[in-house]
């Protein structure tokens, strides 16, 4: 539960807190949702990264649109259970492994992303796809921390 003493109306903690700045919330939500709604990156891959980034940050970014909620359902339960130790699981494809490896280093320190690790993502997603993927990681990383900062993690 957030420590902010005021809230806006909304169905979820993030809507009630971010709604205190409604135009900024709308613009940020539209920006974030675009990656799922327009499938700029495979939504299943985004969901795996949303979960893994959330594990590392300590709070998962709550769903901001129906397409994000749908993506949750696209990941089988067994795979969801393994995402925190994906390197030990045979359930993940080469592309998922490359992207999860890149995502983890992005969260820890993007300067530490190795040339081979970046090349593996570019080989899998292409130039434009890599840009979309990195932008989506920025949203997941930045706004998972935002959710932790304001304690907005769980949906009501």
């Amino acid at each position, binding site marked *: 539960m957030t*420590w*902010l*003493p*005021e809230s806006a109306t909304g169905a979820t903690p993030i809507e009630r*807190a*971010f709604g*205190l*700045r409604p*135009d*900024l*919330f709308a*613009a*940020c939500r*539209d*920006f974030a949702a*675009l*990656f799922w709604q*327009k499938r*700029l990156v495979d939504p299943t891959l985004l969901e795996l990264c949303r979960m893994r980034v959330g594990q*590392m*940050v*300590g*709070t998962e970014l709550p769903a901001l649109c129906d397409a994000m909620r749908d993506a949750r359902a696209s990941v089988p339960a067994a795979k969801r259970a393994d995402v925190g130790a994906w390197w030990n699981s045979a359930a993940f494809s080469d592309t998922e492994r490359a992207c999860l490896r890149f995502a983890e280093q*992005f969260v820890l320190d*993007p*300067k530490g*992303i190795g*040339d081979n690790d*970046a*090349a593996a*993502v*570019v080989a899998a997603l292409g*130039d*434009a796809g*890599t*840009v*979309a993927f*990195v*932008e989506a*990681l*920025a*949203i997941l*990383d*930045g*706004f*998972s*921390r*935002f*959710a*932790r*900062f*304001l304690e907005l993690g769980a949906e009501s």
Partner: protein
Amino acid sequence: MIPARVKPPATTSADPIEASPLALQPESLSAFLRAYGTLWSHGVVDQTTKEMARIRNARRIDCPICKAIRFAGARREGLTEELVDRIRDDWAERDLAPRHKAALRAVDAFHDMAGALDPAGRRELLANFSPAEIVELSAGIALFLGFSKIAVALGGLPDEIPVHEQPTPQVPAGR
């Protein structure tokens, strides 16, 4: 210098964004510019405080382009390089306004504690900012952090870029 991870678009544009890899995804770039313009030009937090938070984040990430930029609105409000110089790792011992120290502590919490802020930090924010301002400031930090990391992760930037002023981001026309 980190090598460029992707090829930038083929363009003769002098606009640094249109010539950057971000232009490979025009729809997301447009949506980002709308969010960023809303933050900077339709906000409730003063430009100087947001700019100090942005620069503190840039130094934490060590993003060459983010460290070099100064937005014109903060300059107009009186942000000087002498003040910017106090936003280093010893900022807590420097002569800074309580509001600015609260904002810098928030930035460092995003980096050091993955966003977790201790009760003293919360009290400090609530004493210096309205709830709407806290939301705007923390959303701004989320955007600053994410997009500094994009610049570093996509590579292709020189290690040092001279400090220079840029217009305060606006919501682009038609967006």
